[in-house]
């Protein structure tokens, strides 16, 4: 079967530049302490029956700094004023976002960027895609609206239609909707799948927010009522299909970061929590599952960087590599969330402990763009 292509670099294309950016992202997120703000923002909303309506937590000042640091522009092509960097670079930042469980539209914006970038590369009339990519460079954030109410994962799962560039219908499960400025919408137009960009302030757009479990994200649905929009890709199917591995890989990176946090936090807890006169990490019934968390997290991280490297330099293998990454990440998410809560005992089951925040975030990510079963079904067609 497939040998690793000679086109791919041994180091995933992860060089000094990526290392510096990753370090910067890590320090930046640690400094912003997103969990503190998140705890503050969700106070009083705990009880699902009696609690208040939950507003998403979003540090706008931090977001503006991230834009100024160039993180939103990093994957935008140079032709649109961006830095034109690789998916591996974006993955390095997305991993840190996941490690910090930071509420931010950055990952959704990066995903939208990779879709628009594909449209720019592929479409004869790419000027429209460039206009929207320029907005991202200027600080606009974006999210993908490509699923219908059934939550199906096929490329043409949208319930939105277009006639003469007017959109109608409802798009669902849109990530970080409260935080973003525009949407990349997949749309059926006379039996063809196309991609449109829509400003959320446009006339006829109605936004409603889902009540979701994950505290570090928000999600919602948008109904379109004769909304004027610009088509950015006539071949929506082709563009979405080619960008798909990037979308999966970015979520995998978020999971890899989150699971590393769960691993390290659980290991630290096992060193300090004493029962039967010993730190619980002494006992192999605790030690060994923590090691299994590490093994799972490492598999995910390696497959994620491999998938990003494949996307950057060997597109023929990128679908299979991305399905492997997201399959592994989805299973790792479930496993690490499960073991982290279990090994923390009672405290890990409480609202008070940060483990619950990561538990919910990685399990939300587990389902994003399809869980392990789905990914393996998709990967099978590449054998």
């Amino acid at each position: 079967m497939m040998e690793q292509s000679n086109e791919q670099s041994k180091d995933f294309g992860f060089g000094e530049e990526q290392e510096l950016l990753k370090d910067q992202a890590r320090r930046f997120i640690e400094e912003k302490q997103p969990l503190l703000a998140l705890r503050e923002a969700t106070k009083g909303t705990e009880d699902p029956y009696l609690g208040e309506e939950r507003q998403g937590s979003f540090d706008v000042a931090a977001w503006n700094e991230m834009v100024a640091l160039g993180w939103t522009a990093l994957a935008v092509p140079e032709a649109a004023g961006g830095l034109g960097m690789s998916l591996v670079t974006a993955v390095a930042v997305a991993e840190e976002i996941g490690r910090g469980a930071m509420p931010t539209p950055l990952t959704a914006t990066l995903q939208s960027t990779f879709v628009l970038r594909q449209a720019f590369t592929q479409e004869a009339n790419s000027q429209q895609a460039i206009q929207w990519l320029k907005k991202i460079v200027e600080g606009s954030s974006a999210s993908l609206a490509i699923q219908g109410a059934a939550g199906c994962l096929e490329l043409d799962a949208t319930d939105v239609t277009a006639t003469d560039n007017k959109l109608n219908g409802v798009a669902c499960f849109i990530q970080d909707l409260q935080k973003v400025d525009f949407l990349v919408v997949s749309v059926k137009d006379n039996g063809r799948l196309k991609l449109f960009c829509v400003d959320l302030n446009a006339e006829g757009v109605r936004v409603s927010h889902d009540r979701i479990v994950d505290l570090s994200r928000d999600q919602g649905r948008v109904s379109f009522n004769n909304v004027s929009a610009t088509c950015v890709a006539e071949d929506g199917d082709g563009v979405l299909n080619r960008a798909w591995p990037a979308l999966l890989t970015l979520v995998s990176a978020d999971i890899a970061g989150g699971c590393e946090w769960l691993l390290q936090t659980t290991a630290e807890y096992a060193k300090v929590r004493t029962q039967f006169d010993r730190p619980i990490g002494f006992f192999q019934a605790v030690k060994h599952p923590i090691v299994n968390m590490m093994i799972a997290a490492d598999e995910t991280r390696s497959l994620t960087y491999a998938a990003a490297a494949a996307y950057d330099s060997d597109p023929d293998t990128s679908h299979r590599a991305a399905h492997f990454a997201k399959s592994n990440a989805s299973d790792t998410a479930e496993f690490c969330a499960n073991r982290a809560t279990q090994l923390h005992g009672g405290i890990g089951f409480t609202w008070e402990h940060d483990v619950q925040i990561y538990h919910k975030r990685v399990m939300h990510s587990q389902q994003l763009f399809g869980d392990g079963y789905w990914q393996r079904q998709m990967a099978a067609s590449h054998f």
Partner: protein
Amino acid sequence: MAGQETAEQKEFRRQCRAWLQENRPPPTAMPLPQAAYEVTTQDHRNYLVDWQAKCFEAELIATDVSADYGGHGHKGLQQIASSEVRRANVPYFINWIGLGMAAPTLLIHGTEAQKKAYLPTIFTGEDIWCQGFSEPGAGSDLVNLQTSAVRDGDNWLINGSKVWTSLGQLAKYMLLLARTDKNDKYNGITYFIGPMEHEGVTVKPIHKMTGEAGFNEVFLDNVVIPDHMRIDEVGVGWKVAMSTLTSERGAAQGVGAVASSNSPFAAIEALIALAKKRKRNGRPIWDDSLWRDKLVKLYERTEAAAQNARRARINALNGGAMRIPLQGKVTGSELGQELHQLALSMLGMESSLYIGDPNAENDGGWMLGYMNTYTGTISGGSSEIQRNILGERVLGLPKSK
């Protein structure tokens, strides 16, 4: 570490690849066992020693070792030679303990004289080595070993027994751990080069559950070992042993591929081929989503192991120098076991047919392979011990003992 190979490395890779293609040896009359630790016959021994000697001459072994010790004196080329050997699907190197454990141990802890005396014949395969660590009462709890070494002038007198000794019946030397102080568990062990041909050494084969006689019991009755065959100082044997085991677990810079004749993907690809060929309910097994899910998952995890090796070389992404290398043994061996279990399920009743049965798929190789996966999960520190090591050394968890 740079991602790109130098011109010299590229040229060397090309040479290795060409040589391996042209010099692949003809198959043996009786098929080789699945792994080097199961070799028992003189015919197989001679064939494999001859093959290793040729590979040494082609500079695939001891590539980066100084010429003073019988090596080829290159820099930065061993890794390339080893990767080409693994890729080429050629017979394994019989002296895997010599290459994988004895040579790294001697290079770090041996005297000049020892390196000059013992390394050259390890590389050529002329002298086969075995490992004398485990004892009947010292398996996972290795430090409990009781074989004694008592000083007698310029010599040592060795008494005790070793067990699970692969290649014991073919070996000239043993990596021997013996107790020099009964009152100090960790600082009472000394490391020797044990001569297998000396008087008082008795080797008795043990048949494994597969029926093969791949390993042995070794009895040591008043065996005399000269002091110049002691490795490092008296009492530091435990520390030296830990560095040997680090090499065994794949975490050290090697002197030659401890070649498996298969790429890590060979087994899973063979299993997928089987799933496409065989039918259940009138359809290929591969078309059944339940089976396919398991098969793709195994392939994905095999890929993860390969990508772990790629990531281990990038300091900024590997989480510490030992984190990924120390996982290799436990993940590789458990994955192999799972894979063989799935293969047996796929074969159904046919999995009951064993070597020699004319109707057995692959001459019973899947069942043989399945049983032999326990070599991987038990020897060299069982999976349970590996998890202790990972938890303690990588994650800093309290020592279980």
